């Protein structure tokens, strides 16, 4: 199993000033660039350390939010492409349905792949609903735009005989000719995050690696199973390296220390969904029948509130979730190295194996010293035991 360290580079110093929305409408006067600079360097140092620890690196991006100050996922990757030497670099990823220029995305990814000498993994994301407003992209044809951008980027990265023409529904170019070409052949591996069986099926039919985030013990098995089924239908063996699962990991020298670290990292889960309700389900973002059920059930926020569940299917409030609840839900693996391994192995068996652990080793309010120890301890005590998994 491959392990990836993921952080959203939260700008947590603003959190005490915020109330009903951490996203979209939060003025950036709550952001102090001097503190922000220190935080960027700190988070980058933690990723750079991963190169020594044998833990791969994952970034993502969100916009107009204090929960994630990584607004361009390729910027930390560009820095880390040079600062690191061996680990792989996963950007999960680029919201290509929200970006106006897919050719530019191909150029960014290609440059990072060359600078890192072929260590890039390319993520393409549809983006959470609250990304629609900052990008001002049309939610009603997001999916269609996403797939057109995807096709164009892949063609741009694999065409080596000069300009080609693209006159699509959403994107028009008469001379696509990306320099540099990527280091890896035919192109860096392709990932996408999914949160439902339907999106897993879509990804499987294209052979993408799926990253499953925040779906926990209750919802993950059906998603992985849908992927495996569609992959087999398409004649591709769904090997574990096609499947990734994200968990918040707090490991300590004692169970208490591991739980304390997980509790701090859970600041991510507790703040991530705090958004003014009008941005939680722009029209067309979900299919009409799903939108109809949300209307009936009191809106998108009510629907979101039941997404995190205990093993026996009871909803957990993500804003107040305890470490024990997060462990029960399969969102967090926490405690001593033995605890973390046991919880991870139980989850692995429950979902029928997966090849990548997307480990949120930093999140919320956990300090730099604790993050470094968290990653180091994981690398020494847990990582070697994972060689036999996946």
């Amino acid at each position: 199993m491959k392990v990836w360290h993921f952080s959203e580079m939260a700008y947590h110093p603003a959190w005490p000033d915020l109330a009903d929305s951490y996203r979209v409408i939060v003025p950036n006067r709550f952001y102090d660039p001097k503190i922000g600079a220190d935080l960027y360097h700190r988070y980058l140092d933690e990723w750079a350390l991963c190169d020594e620890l044998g833990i791969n690196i994952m970034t993502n991006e969100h916009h107009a939010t204090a929960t994630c100050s990584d607004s361009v996922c390729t910027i930390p990757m560009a820095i880390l492409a040079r600062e690191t030497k061996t680990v792989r670099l996963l950007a999960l990823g680029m919201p290509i349905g929200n970006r106006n220029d897919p050719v530019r995305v191909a150029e960014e990814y290609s440059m990072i792949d060359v600078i890192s000498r072929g260590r890039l993994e390319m993520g393409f994301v549809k983006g959470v609903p609250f990304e629609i407003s900052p990008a001002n992209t049309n939610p009603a044809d997001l999916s269609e735009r996403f797939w057109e951008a995807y096709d164009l980027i892949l063609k741009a990265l694999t065409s080596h005989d000069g300009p080609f023409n693209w006159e699509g529904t959403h994107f028009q170019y008469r001379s696509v000719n990306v320099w540099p070409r990527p280091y890896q052949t035919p192109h860096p591996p392709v990932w996408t995050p999914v949160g439902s069986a339907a999106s897993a099926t879509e990804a499987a039919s294209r052979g993408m690696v799926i990253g499953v985030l925040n779906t926990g013990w209750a919802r993950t098995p059906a998603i992985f199973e849908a992927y495996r089924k569609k992959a087999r239908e398409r004649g591709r063996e769904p090997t574990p390296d096609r499947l990734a699962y994200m968990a918040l990991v707090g490991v300590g020298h004692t169970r208490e220390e591991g739980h304390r670290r997980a509790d701090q990292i859970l600041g991510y889960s507790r703040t991530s969904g705090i958004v003014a309700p009008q941005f939680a389900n722009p029209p067309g973002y979900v299919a009409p029948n799903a939108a109809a059920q949300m209307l009936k059930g009191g809106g998108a926020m009510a629907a979101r509130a039941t997404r995190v569940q205990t093993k026996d299917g009871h909803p957990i409030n993500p804003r107040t979730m305890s470490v024990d609840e997060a462990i029960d839900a399969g969102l967090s693996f926490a405690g001593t190295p033995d605890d973390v391994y046991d919880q991870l192995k139980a989850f692995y068996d429950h979902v029928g194996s997966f090849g990548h652990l997307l480990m949120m080793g930093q999140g919320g309010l956990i300090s730099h010293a604790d993050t470094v120890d968290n990653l180091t301890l994981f690398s020494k005590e847990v990582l070697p035991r994972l060689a036999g998994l996946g």
Partner: protein
Amino acid sequence: MAEIEIGRYALDGSTAGSGPPLLFLHGGDFVGQNARFLDRLARRWRVAAPRHPGFGHSERAEGFRTVHDIAYLYLDWLDRQHERAVIVGSSIGGWIALEICVRSVEHVGALVLIDSLGVKFGGREERDIADIYALPEDELRRRTFFDPARVVPDYSSLGDDELTAIARDREATALYGWRPYMHDPGLRQWLHRVRVPTLVLWGEDDGIVPPEYGQRLCAALPSAKFERIAEAGHYPQVEHPDAVADAIERFAATGVTR
């Protein structure tokens, strides 16, 4: 629901009444609540009220990407009428009506715009039309209706079929109106082509597009008069169907229709 066929498109919608033809073009939401108003109009006109492509249970027409496409579809409908039709457009329906009329008023006898969208008057940092996608739900309702409690349904009591139709109305509204937001940047410069008697009706308390916007729109049209509807928001024909129908009948009775 009756189907209204226009060429190869079959639209959900209703037809009622007899007399000269009237085409009602609905807005982006609260479409079902136009029923009482349409009943009133049907006393005098043969009313066709199609649900636009992609709205309600009307199929999303392949290749339709802008309001222009919907306008051409209804131009096809107008071509098939045996006499000139009155067009009544509410909100986005008013925008569609304007797009029709700048193209051709050959088969249009008169135009009624009710709290219409579609035109940009202000500068790039001014917002002519409230951003319905960024407003908290309570504020959106207060801006949309003079008395929301009388009009906004209890969604938990509606059937799946109706809720899906509403979700599709909202999705299609976003598809056509998301960006540029609820207007066509090129429309204003062609408004002089709306050479047809026009009544511009406006809810006095419309918090989505205020009456001042309606007055600017009226002034930009070659042959239009402006009238306010009291105690009404963005959909006055929903809140006061009789007052709006009366105003339209008075307008028609003055013999202004071509």
